[in-house]
């Protein structure tokens, strides 16, 4: 009744292909953007920034990236952690080699470097599919982590083998390092996420996005309408790795500040991002956000209830978190393989008809 389609006519194809065809959706979207940019920075505090908001923003970028590869192009990757590590180490090397370089440029360059590495590991995807490819990406995961562990050049020969983010500024504000204001870090990540999400939306709704989905749904049919499988798969790998690299760079420089590669970018990180897109929704931009939010909030919530509320030891909370995550994955795959995004879509369809469903 209040949320409706009636009277919202489209007279041009341009109007029909916009991201939010319904006027009410558009208004809600602009309101949310305004809230995120204009209200949150003034009320943010350290706890919310470091426990929820900043990890959410960064992991949403990674999840967008993996969704492009897995959700849109149908190529399952278990190497996300390794590619995030590439972004992080590229960022570190650039930060230390060019101290005066603008942080935004550093992050983007780290993304491009990761895209190049992703291209390299994407080459086998021409010949192999499904979980064969998943195993091939495991090779990337383990090899990259080993490489950053073993070659001292990557961590500038530091004694601990860790990398630490030096203090860098953006427009005069400190973005990285111990003195960075949470509001600044938040806005920095939010800006990047917003732009990248828009680009992801644009890429997926046009020619390139359709060629990715065509390869995903029926590669033989895609070929006969002129889609070059190698070029298409590699472009998905490159774009996806760019996003994941940017996420890795931010995760290291803005969020953690110091990284030990095996702990932060190990195979569990790969799974975590994969779970985000399964729970959020494969092949959906909204799903990438929903999944990232879910996977960031759920552990915080569980921890608050079990450790903070009931006073259980943290290791028990951690075990139960594993069980909940694993169980949810199975449940989502059984009940709603298209994830939260589909639930949201169905809810909106119901709401359009409410209260007269016939």
């Amino acid at each position, binding site marked *: 009744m209040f949320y409706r389609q009636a009277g919202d006519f489209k007279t041009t194809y341009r109007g029909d292909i916009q991201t939010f065809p319904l006027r009410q959706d558009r208004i809600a979207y602009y309101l949310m953007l305004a809230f995120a940019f204009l209200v949150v920075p003034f009320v943010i505090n350290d706890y919310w920034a470091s426990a929820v908001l900043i990890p959410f923003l960064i992991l949403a970028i990674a999840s967008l990236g993996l969704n492009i590869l897995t959700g849109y192009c149908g190529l*399952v990757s278990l190497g996300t952690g390794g590619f995030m590590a590439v972004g992080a180490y590229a960022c570190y090397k650039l930060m230390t080699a060019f101290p005066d370089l603008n942080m935004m440029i550093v992050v983007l360059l780290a993304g491009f470097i990761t895209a190049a590495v992703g291209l390299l590991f994407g*080459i*086998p995807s021409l*010949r*192999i599919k*499904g*979980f*064969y*490819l*998943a*195993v*091939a990406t*495991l*090779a990337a*995961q*383990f*090899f990259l*982590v*080993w490489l950053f*562990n*073993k*070659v001292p050049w990557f961590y500038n020969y530091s004694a601990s083998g860790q990398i630490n983010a030096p203090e860098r500024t953006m427009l005069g504000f400190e973005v990285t390092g111990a003195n960075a204001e949470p509001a600044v870090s938040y806005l920095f990540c939010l800006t990047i996420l917003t732009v990248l999400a828009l680009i992801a939306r644009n890429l997926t709704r046009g020619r390139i996005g359709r060629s990715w989905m065509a390869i995903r749904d029926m590669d*033989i049919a895609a070929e006969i309408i002129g889609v070059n499988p190698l070029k298409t798969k590699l472009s998905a790998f490159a774009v996806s790795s760019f996003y994941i690299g940017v996420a890795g760079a931010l995760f290291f420089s803005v969020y953690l500040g110091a990284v030990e590669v095996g702990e932060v970018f190990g*195979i569990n990180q790969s*799974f975590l991002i*994969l*779970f985000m897109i*399964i729970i959020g929704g494969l092949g959906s931009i909204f799903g990438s956000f929903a999944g990232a939010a879910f996977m960031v909030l759920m552990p915080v919530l569980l921890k608050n209830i079990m450790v903070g509320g*009931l*006073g*259980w*030891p943290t*290791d*028990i909370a*951690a*075990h*139960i*978190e*594993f*069980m*909940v*995550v*694993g*169980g*949810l*994955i*199975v449940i989502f*795959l*059984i009940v709603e*393989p298209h994830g939260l995004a589909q639930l949201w879509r169905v809810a909106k369809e119901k709401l359009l008809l409410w209260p007269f469903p016939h």
Partner: protein
Amino acid sequence: MSPQFLYTIEVMLNGLMAGVMYSLVALGFVLIFKASGIFNYAQGVMALFAAMTLVGIQNGQVPFAHLVNAVFGTNIHGFGWNLPALFAIILTLGVMILFAILVERLILKHLVNQEPIILFMATIGLAFFMEGFGDLMWGSDIKVLDVGIPSGGSLWLEDKTIGWAAEGSNYYGMYIDKLDIVATLVALLLVITLTLFSQYTKTGRALRAVADDHQAALSVGISLRRIWVIVWAISGFVALVAGIMWGAKSGVQFSLSLIALKALPVLILGGFTSIPGAIIGGLIIGVGEKLFEFTIGPLIGGATENWFAYVLALLFLVFRPQGLFGEKIIERV
């Protein structure tokens, strides 16, 4: 013979022994893959879970003791008994069979006819669940598993080989763990038993029928769901054996499930549906990674065992996607 040559042989033999372990886990993968087309990522965690359960039962641990203590403020830990190894193994086997039934009821039944990749991701979820569940049930500390398998270097072999090296060199004979020898024998026995089982029993024939063609098997009255329970139970058993061997060697801990991940490259080499392929693939990976670490490892910083298997598999995928024994696939349009 030069000591260098003898060392190389020793490395190869040790690699063979490690390979047997990989083969053992890969075997579990192959069984499930053949019967249900499911690529069971949780196989490694199943081995870990089986080993934890065995230790727990043997030492009389109270399941979920930590949780119970946290919730009710009690302080219980053990029943205070120690069960004989064999009895504990049989009880653990029972747990694994129960597990197989639950997996079929709660997961597989609902995912029939889904794409393989969805099933694969479901088993990743299952692996996470079981990891948390196992830790919650038995605690996450590193456990010592002792079911009476002899271990330590074989003195007999050292004595025999000490004289092989050239006169005057510092060679003290070959070092091979007795545990590895036992593991090899057990693996051999297991493969023979499984082969006999699938060749000569009715259930075995049904298994092979299902592996060949699901539809055809259904049409002659074989119950797919029963077959799934059986293969998951057998895989649970194989996981238990693998878990005992790995556990006895390096303690029952989380890394066990990661080592089991190595079964994936093994399968890419050996093919996903071939039991001999799994064995030979395992041996190649085992020997390959030990030799690589021994010869090239020192030049590039060591710890190459972490990735060697995967990169080898990657190369295989690029240049020979059908594996060592598979036939070239002709794609029908």
